[in-house]
């Protein structure tokens, strides 16, 4: 090691990854010393995986039970050890080939709102079906005495449904009315409660018709739509939450010369924080000891590693690549770069906040019409016949028949089907409005590093390097974590190069690798260091690593950030669909322009700070152009929040992923075109569904206004329109026309 630290950081902090302390912090106490830890294991997908994971974990000493949840791709482990140190759960899973990571406590699995919705749905279903059973006997001609008895039983059954299951709608309607707005729930609430009250009145006076069945089955159908809507959002949310967290839960600090693992929130400015190679820097600070290289791609969009030494500033979120570092914190966790980004995101909250859902816009048009119509038919009948009771009955029949049952299902059912289709292609959508907004875009802005590119270098000139040099380089790089070394090892592994074994390999932070064998000294890394003082002739824009033996050049490795497979096709596809494509990057102009040329993008801005990215996106919004932002870094998060709709790869920084409306899991950029295709297709289906629902109303309303709607007609009409709307939604194809199918990976 080149630096002379008094403390061996790497040995204290141990191997990078999740530390036992972090597992303990993230576990919860089940009582009597047993603790439960939730791990997210994205790789489980079949019975064999379940068996392998559960058996492996259960065999670890101290583990009491392990249970895989395949739906959420999570495993819950209950463990109890004498000293409170958790077993090496993550290491054991890695040993059998499953990557796993901690699932934090604040993302608890239980969802009280969903449970409430399902209970309301179950009750409404129970009541409406039993009422329907009684109604059928009334419709088929029960005599007056049993009819009244049946209606009374129906009233008893309808009461809990109207009170308990209806709450969902009353609460929403009330909060809308209180703010002087109206939504779909207002006519629903009025219709259901009036229908119930009138039917109760009629039952007590032994009238032939009662609308208990209509009121409860209306609730039942609408609750189905509501529950589907909620399930879809939750599912995407928990899937996104299950991805690896980039921000650590805590950090190892030095207190009185002793290492101590503490939660992030307790780190004070001036604390000494230890950062091992392979870990992310948890907090803004200044390097006190050690030399290393940092991967800043997540923070600044810069793809080449940056070298840091004593007194250099480091930002929270950057990855420490080669050497252990001791960092003095200069800010608290909530004042760090990360928190700054979160604040900018909150300020930038753009398209999403202003956007009004299609369903709400429809309701704003729809409910005044419905209310006026019901009122007019009441007044008209009152004027013509002077019969209060008949007029009220007809007005309520109008309300029930026009109640937006099909409208309530028209949007959520399409969005649920669309989300399902996107899931099949590895794209997760956060909520339904994202699909609506996606269908409206007229431009796409891409971030470069990590979005258009994979954010890690790959070897460009593998063919030109002699096999002997490749073998030497392979042997040197195989144990290294540096992205350049990994790229060389990856390229070497693809060929049939013999690995050279060395007596000693040492990683020089910020410089490269040095190895020795039979008295020869091999170096691989930065040209000026490798050539030992002699000046390299280097006019290339790409980063280059040299390999030397005793100072003599053996090979030059040219490295470049590898472009995502299908990036070119994805861009072409978007341009073909009439969208303006541009690149907004924080990286240097030369690199960005080179890539833009390769992808055929003309609109390029480079060297942007996070604030400037937001400004760039906001300028489009002001010009009334709706922009889809695709980005992954911390520096993209505010722009993701500001854009009309946003998309991030699963490898993105946590807050970027949280800010984005869509998250795609595959490496291929064809996800952008695919999501757009499905969004546009589902918009068409939603419009069709609205047309169907409105058309049905146009047919049914005259019948209702003329007073011909009996409970039987209402029940049949309502069910029929809902079934038609659902059937139409299911027509959404799994691979939309116009979007590309993922082709073979291609290297540029």
């Amino acid at each position, binding site marked *: 090691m080149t630096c002379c630290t008094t403390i061996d950081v790497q040995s204290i902090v141990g191997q990078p990854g999740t530390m036992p302390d972090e597992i303990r912090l993230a576990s919860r106490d089940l009582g009597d010393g047993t603790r439960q830890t939730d791990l997210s294991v994205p790789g489980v997908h079949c*019975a064999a995986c*379940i068996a392998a994971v559960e*058996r492996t974990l259960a065999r670890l000493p101290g583990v009491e039970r392990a*249970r*895989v949840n*395949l*739906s959420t791709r999570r495993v819950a482990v209950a463990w109890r050890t004498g000293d409170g140190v958790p077993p090496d759960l993550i290491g054991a899973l890695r040993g059998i080939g499953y990557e796993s990571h901690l699932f934090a406590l604040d993302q608890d699995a239980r969802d009280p709102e969903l449970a409430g919705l399902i209970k309301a749905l179950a009750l409404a279903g129970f009541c409406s079906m*039993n009422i329907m059973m009684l109604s059928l006997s009334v419709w088929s001609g029960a005599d007056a005495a049993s009819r009244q008895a049946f209606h009374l*039983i129906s009233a008893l059954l309808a009461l809990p449904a109207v009170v308990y299951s209806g709450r969902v709608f009353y609460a929403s309607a009330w909060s809308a009315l209180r703010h002087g707005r109206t939504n779909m729930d207002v006519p629903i609430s009025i219709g259901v409660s009036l229908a119930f009250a009138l039917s109760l009145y009629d039952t007590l006076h032994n009238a032939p018709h009662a609308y208990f069945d209509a009121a409860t089955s209306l609730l039942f159908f609408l609750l189905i739509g509501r529950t589907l809507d909620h399930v879809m959002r939750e599912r995407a949310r928990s899937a996104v939450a299950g991805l690896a967290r980039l921000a650590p839960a805590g950090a190892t600090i030095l207190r009185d010369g002793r290492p101590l693992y503490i939660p992030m929130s307790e780190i004070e400015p001036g604390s000494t924080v230890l950062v091992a190679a392979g870990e992310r820097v948890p907090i803004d600070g200044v390097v006190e000891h050690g030399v290393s290289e940092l991967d800043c791609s997540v923070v600044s969009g810069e793809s080449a590693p940056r070298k840091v030494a004593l007194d250099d500033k480091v930002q929270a979120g950057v990855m420490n690549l080669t050497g252990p570092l001791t960092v003095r914190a200069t800010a608290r966790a909530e004042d760090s770069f990360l928190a700054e980004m979160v604040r900018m995101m909150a300020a930038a909250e753009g398209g999403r906040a202003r956007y009004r859902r299609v369903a709400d816009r429809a309701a704003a048009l729809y409910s005044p019409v419905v209310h006026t119509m019901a009122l007019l038919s009441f007044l008209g009948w009152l004027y013509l016949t002077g019969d209060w009771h008949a007029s009220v009955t007809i007005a309520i029949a109008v309300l029930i028949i026009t109640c937006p049952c099909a409208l309530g299902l028209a949007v959520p059912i399409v969005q649920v089907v669309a989300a399902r289709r996107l899931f099949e292609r590895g794209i997760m959508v956060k909520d339904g409005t994202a699909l609506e907004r996606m269908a409206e875009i007229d431009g796409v802005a891409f971030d470069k590093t990590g979005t258009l590119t994979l954010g890690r270098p790959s070897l460009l000139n593998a063919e030109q390097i002699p096999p002997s040099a490749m073998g030497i380089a392979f042997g040197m790089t195989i144990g290294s974590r540096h992205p350049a070394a990994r790229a060389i090892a990856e390229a070497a592994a693809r060929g049939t190069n013999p690995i050279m074994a060395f007596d000693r390999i040492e990683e020089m932070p910020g410089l490269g690798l040095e190895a020795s064998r039979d008295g020869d000294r091999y170096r691989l890394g930065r040209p000026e260091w490798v050539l030992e003082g002699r000046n390299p002739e280097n006019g290339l824009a790409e980063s280059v690593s040299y390999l030397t033996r005793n100072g003599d050049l053996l090979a030059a490795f040219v490295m470049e950030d590898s472009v995502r497979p299908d990036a070119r096709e994805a861009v072409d596809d978007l341009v073909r669909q009439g969208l303006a494509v541009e690149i907004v990057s924080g990286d240097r102009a030369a690199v960005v322009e080179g890539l833009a040329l390769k992808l055929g993008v003309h609109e390029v801005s480079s060297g942007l700070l996070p604030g400037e990215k937001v400004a760039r996106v906001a300028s489009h919004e002001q010009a009334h152009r709706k922009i889809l932002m695709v980005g992954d870094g911390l520096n993209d998060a505010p722009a993701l929040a500001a854009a009309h709709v946003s998309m991030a790869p699963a490898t993105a920084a946590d807050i970027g992923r949280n800010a984005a409306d869509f998250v795609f899991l595959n490496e291929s950029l064809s996800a952008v075109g695919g999501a757009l295709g499905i969004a546009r297709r589902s918009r068409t289906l939603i419009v069709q569904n609205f047309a169907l629902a409105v058309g049905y109303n146009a047919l049914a309303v005259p019948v209702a206004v003329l007073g011909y709607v009996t409970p039987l007609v209402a029940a049949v009409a309502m069910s029929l329109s809902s079934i038609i709307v659902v059937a139409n939604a299911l027509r959404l194809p799994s691979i939309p026309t116009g979007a590309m199918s993922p082709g073979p990976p291609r290297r540029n």
Partner: protein
Amino acid sequence: MSSMWWLILIGLGMACAGLATFLWSLRNGQYEDLDGAAERVLLEEDPGDKGRTHQER
């Protein structure tokens, strides 16, 4: 006539039992992992028991 009332009573009772069962299964976590339940059928033994069944045999 009275047989009809009995039938209605029995019908409602059965429906109530169904509703109660559903609510119980909801609270019991029967719907937490529907995909997992479908796959677990294929497992020979319950992997949660640390493979004890296997050794005892």
